[in-house]
């Protein structure tokens, strides 16, 4: 089920990406020299709390950061493969594209479905016109052919095509709009799809529906999915790999089963025990002490050390790098990853 990383080439290689926001008090270090591979047709979840930098990574990939943000360093190598024989067709650095090339890259190579899908559509244009706009911008199908393609997609996301096609956004419910947006995201058959908190504002049943749609789509269409959320359970259900983000860095990265069974970073462990589930016993739930760091004036060494029960003197002094732990595919940025689980989750096997 999980694609093997070794023989699965990457769609996007992010290297040493650093993004800062300009604020009055100083530079907000939103993303700090991140390295990340996004493999072909895998689902990668970026999890972390608000302000951890996960959304900034997403926006950085499609270069839609607000004007106060600056990409300081890094490269993002995007690889496009032939859809039938998976041969590498093209390879380029997203950060080096000019405005026109960037416009073509967006949505065609990488579509991003945003957090607040409720307002993702222009309120004065019909859904069909917004599909038309997108298609025209990329020299894609028009007229009846476009309609046929859109109807297929609406079927995929379990919407009534007849009703949706001729509607204005305000005539659709939140869950429907979210699914229309997913359908629109798939219009150009992009090799990569980024979903930023795609179900946050939605009801549980609608959320379930969208999760099911997403799982189905992924099995059918095999695109790379980057899934940004603060909700561990969504990641558990949808992702192949999980990257935990804290204070602008990836602190743990690994296969979803491995991460949930053998978490290596105290922050991941903290998150897991901070969110009660239907089955956990009350006594196994505990919050992480302290509060997320100030991204302008960050602590020294490991940024998690003020909240970490395992912190030692070294953690205050030196920031650990993201290194392999139990296997080459399970990485963590913690000096004490070996003891973490044993100390923090003593009553879990």
């Amino acid at each position, binding site marked *: 089920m999980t694609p093997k990383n070794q023989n699965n080439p990457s769609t996007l290689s992010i290297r040493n990406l650093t993004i800062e926001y300009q604020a009055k008090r100083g530079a907000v270090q939103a993303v700090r020299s991140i390295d990340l591979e996004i493999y072909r047709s895998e689902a990668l979840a970026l999890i972390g709390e608000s302000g951890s930098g996960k959304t900034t990574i997403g926006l950085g990939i499609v270069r839609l950061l607000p004007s106060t943000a600056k990409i300081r360093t890094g490269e993002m190598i995007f690889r496009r493969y032939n859809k039938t024989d998976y041969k590498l067709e093209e390879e380029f650095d997203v950060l080096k594209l000019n405005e026109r090339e960037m416009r073509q890259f967006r949505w065609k190579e990488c579509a991003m479905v945003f957090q607040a899908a409720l307002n993702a559509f222009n309120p004065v244009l019909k859904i069909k016109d917004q599909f038309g706009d997108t298609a025209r*911008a990329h020299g894609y199908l028009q007229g009846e052919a476009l309609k046929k393609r859109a109807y297929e997609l609406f079927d995929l996301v379990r919407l009534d095509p007849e009703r949706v096609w001729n509607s204005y956004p305000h005539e659709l419910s939140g869950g429907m709009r979210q699914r229309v947006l997913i359908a*629109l995201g798939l219009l150009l058959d992009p090799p990569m799809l980024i979903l930023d908190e795609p179900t946050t504002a939605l009801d549980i049943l609608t959320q379930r529906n969208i999760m099911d749609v997403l799982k189905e789509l992924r099995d059918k269409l095999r695109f790379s999915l980057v899934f940004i959320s603060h909700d561990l359970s969504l990641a558990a259900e949808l992702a192949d790999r999980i990257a935990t983000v804290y204070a602008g860095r990836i602190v743990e990265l690994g296969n979803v089963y491995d991460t949930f069974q053998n978490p290596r970073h105290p922050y991941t462990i903290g998150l897991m025990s901070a969110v009660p589930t239907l089955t956990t016993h009350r006594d196994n739930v505990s919050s992480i002490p302290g509060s997320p760091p100030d991204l302008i004036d960050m602590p020294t060494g490991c940024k998690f050390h003020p909240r970490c029960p395992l912190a030692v003197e070294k953690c205050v002094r030196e920031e650990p790098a993201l290194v392999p732990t139990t296997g080459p595919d399970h990485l963590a940025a913690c000096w004490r990853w070996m003891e973490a689980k044993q100390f923090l989750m003593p009553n879990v096997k």
Partner: protein
Amino acid sequence: MSENSKTKPWSERILKNYAVQTIFKKIFIIWVVVTLSFLIVRGLPGNPVEIMVLNLMDSQGISEDEARTRAASLLRLDLDAPLYVQYFDFLGNLVQGDLGESYVLARGKPVTEIVFQRLPWTLFSVGTSLLISFTVGMFLGMLAAYRRGSMLDQVLTNLSAMIGAVPNTLWAIILVLLLGVVWKIMPLNLMRGSLSPGIKPGFTLEFFVDLFKHWAVPGTVYVLTTLGGWMLAMRSSTVSVLGDDYVTVARARGLPDFRIITAYVGRNASLPLVTALAISIGFLLGGSTVIEFIFVYQGVGLLMSQAITKRDYPVMQGILLVTTITVIISTAIADLLYGWLDPRIRTSGGENAE
């Protein structure tokens, strides 16, 4: 539920209809203005009718009784009847389109005729200027919003606010001074009147060129005094739309900038301005009085100031009424325009509220 609504009496259903309600509202406004204008002539303590009688005696050398009869016929009222009878007579005449006759400005000429003769000139000058300042203001406002915080934005917003703050009277004089007296760019007679002598209205090039030449300076005053308001309104509206999610999503979809600026940002940002447009028409028509006075532009504004100085009450009443109707018609057009631009208004009868 649906059967229930079917069994409701048709009269009730019509009264609940949105369009019918709107029309009633508009008729009500006209009625308020009509009553007001009646009260002004008949009900105010200054007793304008007595002044009118004195005026007639004075100018035409007739006896008081004759003057009273004359005034009554000009106003189409029986001055001796109880006030409410006069009021209903007045309303009755009005419904037949009879606003009485002018007695000073154009003796014996029906007021309707005089006002309608002047109205096209004002509508042309005010309308053209409004169109220009609205379009240019929207354009500059969007420009400033896109470049917000930049030097250009600073200059545009500060400058336009300041230009708009100078009263139109002053602008009119400043322009006459600068163009006609100091720089001598424009002959003063071109700034006076609405057409050069000898040019007849018609579909000739000569006429249109002259029309615009005479419009140029008063038109500039209208534009200068209103442009800033449009610009600032469009700027703030655009800034808020630019922060909306659908604009970011449109960029993520790789849409060309032009399409985003027009159909996504422009159309949504201009929505609140359409309502403001409706309100501004009422003010501009009023503002035309002083501008037309300065430029001797032959429109209703000038007629108004003449009627005021000459105390021609029927004409004053007529102008008040006709401008009210004009304003109401333009607001109705703006309402329609708004509905056409914003589908959420159009389908508000639906039950999609979540």
